[in-house]
């Protein structure tokens, strides 16, 4: 049996063992691993998490028992001190000797500490091991004990330095990042990107100092400051050095292996050093004159070394991907490929939005066909897809700017679906999992969740950056399989909305609990089926948003639309858009009283924004006292019936469109449906009310009204289609009643009338048959059902206010305190206010 000795039990040394075990099942080789650190290999990439939970277990790559189960002898706390290549032996610090057939150097690197005078002082730390973090944390505690305004600095504004800076701020010290270069992350970002990032960092309280060379570390025994020049000193109580890494090649040097002039054990692309029985992998290895300071290339090297030892012929690829995404929650920074256009082979396209703090740049080959690299700051949501397009040399859109701006004017997204990637695309680079492997789990092995796929492939278990893309792949593969062939509501109900409508109605089911226990699965349901049930109870029994409160969708639950900052909007009904000067004055007074942002909506009424939860009943009380009613702007229900001024004033008007719009809006107010419903009434074919863009549109013509249905503005505009011509007011109402009721009974959840009409077999002719010619014999029922709903109308805000009791007030922010939410922040906007922007 041959013996493999592994020196170094870091991330890459561990990965070597794992890959060796997968390939050999632990037979044929005796493996001994030496680690200088006291504990088995842990995840250095997520080291910063240790600052917040001090849970070393959680970072562990594998417990000691794993090594035992695989017959690997793991000797920690034992540094290897010499290699004797002639006798193929090594010695350790405790003078033990071991013989090898193959030797694997996975000694990693150490933090580079620049030789600044005074750098040896107390209070200067590096950031590489759990012990480093323990030492840093206890020093921070000491500083905090002795002074209230302790200050720290980070030397180095690269990837690690910024991560460290954030960690120290979180520990409660004021922190500055000191960078020698004129920009942050100089290896990944250009100047403009750095500026945007700098503003973001300053936003979280990290001070940034650029172009600063440190001449001297000030202080006696312990550090008190950093001197940049004759007259510039930054006072600090501690310093964390993050100025780069130095490969640990000391063993290799003393045993005569080739090392690079600036350090690193020279290897060829089979990962062998100048001695063919000695391999070097990970951050100690110098490949193509480069040290790859990232874990993914290290893992690839481990794989190559394993294969070579087993007699295979794998080699490292000629180009190694160095793309990176910063792991600071809330701060998006990523760069990939030739981000700085160092090869000068590309043209750049840049998008910058200073207001929102977004900077995006892509470098495109001169022929406009290939994506060569890019930088994303402030919004890196497209990173995974762009990175894949770059890695796989995929075709890019004709207008490359679509990649960062999105396709404008067209229907579809600029880069289609994750399924367009080639099967060989490596989606999870930490674990080298390809798109093909992920889709195979879904398509051939029947997996349906991220959890299952992650368990089976290890994808997403490394840095986690690929999670969104893996999730997309799973969902889109499922979709492509037609998994949702039957339009069931969700995992809790095997019925379509129409089937559930009939069940509820025929069996007289009145609560969600009953519906779930008699026709669903499980005890709890979810955010998909609950609002559907609430909507059915409303459409069948005229229940309001106050009933079944906990199953109502976000907005129905509090009878108001939730806004960006957790406040709400308030929209009183202004039927047909007709409003008196007195009403306008009252609205103005209420807006002023509660300091609400006020605007006229696209639905021709008035919207107040920025009401805090506990203010809603107060505002509505005032509105109701002044004669207003709920406008149901929050519900999947009738919104507005827009009118034009019509024959009352207009010289072309054929009929009184305002009067009719008011009558119709008041008829259907409060009516709940699968999606929202909007109407319009125009006084002539000039169509100033845009009635044909509404779910139902009514237009006055010579001889009566034309009635159109199934129009839509919004995301997919569609003109309404003619249902009946030259009909009377009564006929309009009869047909609209039946059309709406038929839609309410048969549409899927969140399907508007336009999409419903597009899908229904027979289209408009079928609907005409049903609502005019009574082809299904349904008309009586439809008429009766609608009459019932119209008669049952009540203003649900009035109802809500009457039923608030001190004991149980759902509009209180806290159950145990009268206080309001003090985290809500507004900023000024013109003469009003708006929520503070999202970071």
């Amino acid at each position: 049996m041959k013996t493999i000795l592994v020196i170094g039990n870091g991330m890459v040394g561990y990965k070597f063992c794992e890959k060796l075990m997968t390939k050999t099942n632990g037979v044929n080789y005796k493996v001994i691993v030496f680690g200088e650190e006291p504990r088995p290999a842990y995840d250095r990439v997520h080291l910063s998490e240790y600052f917040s939970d001090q849970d070393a277990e959680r970072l562990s790559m594998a417990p000691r028992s794993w090594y035992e189960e695989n017959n690997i002898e793991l000797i920690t706390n034992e540094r290897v001190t010499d290699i004797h290549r002639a006798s193929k032996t090594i010695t350790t610090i405790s003078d033990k000797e071991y013989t090898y057939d193959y030797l694997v150097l996975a000694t990693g690197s150490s933090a580079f500490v620049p030789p600044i005078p005074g750098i040896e002082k107390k209070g200067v730390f590096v950031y590489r091991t759990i012990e480093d973090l323990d030492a840093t944390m206890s020093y921070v505690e000491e500083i905090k004990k002795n002074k209230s305004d302790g200050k720290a600095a980070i030397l180095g504004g690269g990837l690690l330095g910024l991560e460290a800076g954030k960690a120290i701020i979180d520990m409660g010290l004021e922190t500055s990042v000191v960078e020698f270069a004129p920009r942050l992350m100089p290896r990944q970002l250009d100047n403009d990107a750095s500026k945007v990032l700098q503003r973001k960092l300053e936003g979280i309280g990290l001070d940034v100092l650029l172009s600063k060379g440190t001449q001297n570390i000030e202080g006696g025994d312990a550090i008190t400051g950093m001197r940049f020049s004759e007259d510039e000193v930054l006072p600090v109580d501690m310093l964390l050095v993050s100025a780069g890494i130095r490969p640990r090649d000391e063993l290799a040097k003393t045993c005569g292996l080739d090392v690079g002039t600036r350090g690193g054990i020279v290897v060829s692309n089979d990962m062998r050093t100048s001695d063919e029985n000695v391999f070097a992998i990970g951050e100690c290895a110098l490949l193509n004159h480069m040290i790859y300071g990232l874990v993914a290339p290290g893992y690839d090297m481990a794989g190559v070394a394993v294969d070579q030892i087993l007699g295979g012929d794998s080699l490292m690829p000629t180009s190694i991907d160095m793309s990176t995404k910063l792991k600071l929650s809330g701060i998006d920074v990523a760069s990939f490929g030739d981000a700085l256009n160092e090869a000068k082979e590309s043209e750049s396209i840049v998008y910058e939005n200073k207001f929102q703090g977004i900077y995006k740049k892509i470098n495109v080959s001169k022929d406009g066909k290939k994506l060569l690299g890019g930088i994303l700051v402030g919004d890196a949501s497209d990173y995974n897809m762009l990175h894949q397009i770059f890695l796989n040399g995929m075709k890019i859109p004709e207008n490359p700017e679509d990649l960062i701006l999105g396709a404008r004017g067209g229907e579809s997204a600029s880069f289609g679906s994750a399924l367009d990637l080639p099967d060989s695309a490596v989606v999870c680079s930490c674990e080298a999992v390809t798109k093909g492997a992920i889709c195979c789990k879904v398509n051939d092995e029947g997996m349906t969740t991220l959890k299952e796929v992650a368990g089976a492939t290890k994808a997403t278990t490394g840095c986690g950056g690929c999670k969104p893309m893996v999730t997309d792949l799973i969902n889109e593969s499922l979709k492509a399989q037609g998994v949702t062939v039957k339009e069931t509501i969700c995992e809790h109900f095997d019925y379509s909305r129409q089937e559930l409508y009939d069940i509820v109605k025929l069996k007289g089911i009145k609560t969600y609990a009953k519906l779930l226990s008699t026709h669903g699965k499980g005890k709890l349901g979810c955010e998909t089926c609950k609002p559907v049930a609430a909507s059915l109870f409303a459409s069948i029994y005229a229940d309001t948003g106050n009933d079944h409160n906990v199953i109502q969708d976000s907005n129905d639950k509090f009878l108001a639309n939730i806004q960006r900052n957790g406040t709400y909007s308030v929209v009183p009904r202004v039927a047909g858009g007709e409003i008196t000067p007195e009403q306008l004055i009252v609205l103005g007074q209420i807006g002023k009283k509660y300091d609400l942002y006020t605007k006229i909506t696209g639905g021709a009424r008035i919207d107040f924004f920025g009401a805090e939860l506990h203010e809603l009943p107060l505002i509505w009380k005032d509105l109701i006292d002044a004669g207003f009613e709920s406008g149901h702007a929050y519900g999947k229900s009738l919104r507005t019936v827009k009118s034009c001024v019509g024959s009352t004033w207009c010289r072309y008007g054929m009929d009184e469109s305002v009067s009719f719009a008011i009558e119709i809006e008041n008829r259907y107010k409060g009516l709940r449906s699968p999606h929202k419903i909007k109407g319009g009434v125009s006084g002539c074919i000039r169509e100033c009310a845009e009635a044909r863009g509404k779910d139902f549109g009514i237009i006055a013509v010579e001889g009566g009204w034309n009635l159109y249905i199934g129009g839509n503005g919004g995301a997919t505009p569609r003109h309404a289609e003619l249902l009946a011509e030259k009909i009377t007011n009564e006929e309009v109402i009869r047909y609209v009643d039946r059309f709406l009721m038929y839609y309410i009974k048969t549409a899927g959840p969140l399907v508007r009338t336009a999409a419903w009409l597009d899908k229904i077999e027979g289209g408009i002719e079928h609907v005409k048959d049903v609502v005019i010619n009574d082809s299904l014999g349904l008309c009586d029922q439809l008429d009766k059902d609608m009459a019932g709903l119209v008669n049952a109308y009540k203003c649900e805000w009035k109802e809500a206010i009457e039923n608030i009791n001190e004991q149980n007030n759902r509009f209180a922010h806290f159950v145990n305190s009268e206080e309001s939410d003090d985290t809500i922040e507004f900023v000024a906007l013109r003469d009003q206010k708006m929520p503070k922007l999202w970071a």
Partner: protein
Amino acid sequence: MNSILEQYKTVPESEVKTWFKAAPVSKFPENGGACVKVNDKQIAVFNFTAEGKWYASQNVCPHKMEMVLSRGMIGEDCGTPKIACPLHKKTFSLETGENLNGEDYSIAIFPVKIEEGFVYIGTH
């Protein structure tokens, strides 16, 4: 902004030092949630009446840092109790705090106990 998130760390039942007396059970909607002020923090408490279980989590949604999770909707995902944020419907496991849509961020969760008709939240 993220300093808000730093204030909320999962408290395992075994590490509870103080049980914060929140409010009587009757104050919490059945099969719904409500927000409790715990000193200067906001904790969302969820009453899974159908199962006779209670859960608690940070009230702030880590997606956009808004104090809204207690106003979300509870439910289950293949047997895991979860909460859906009212703003963009991101869902989180109430057992582990894990994001169930496959995104990176998660929420901190806290133990809850009921004694003599009162809801208590476990804190450090």
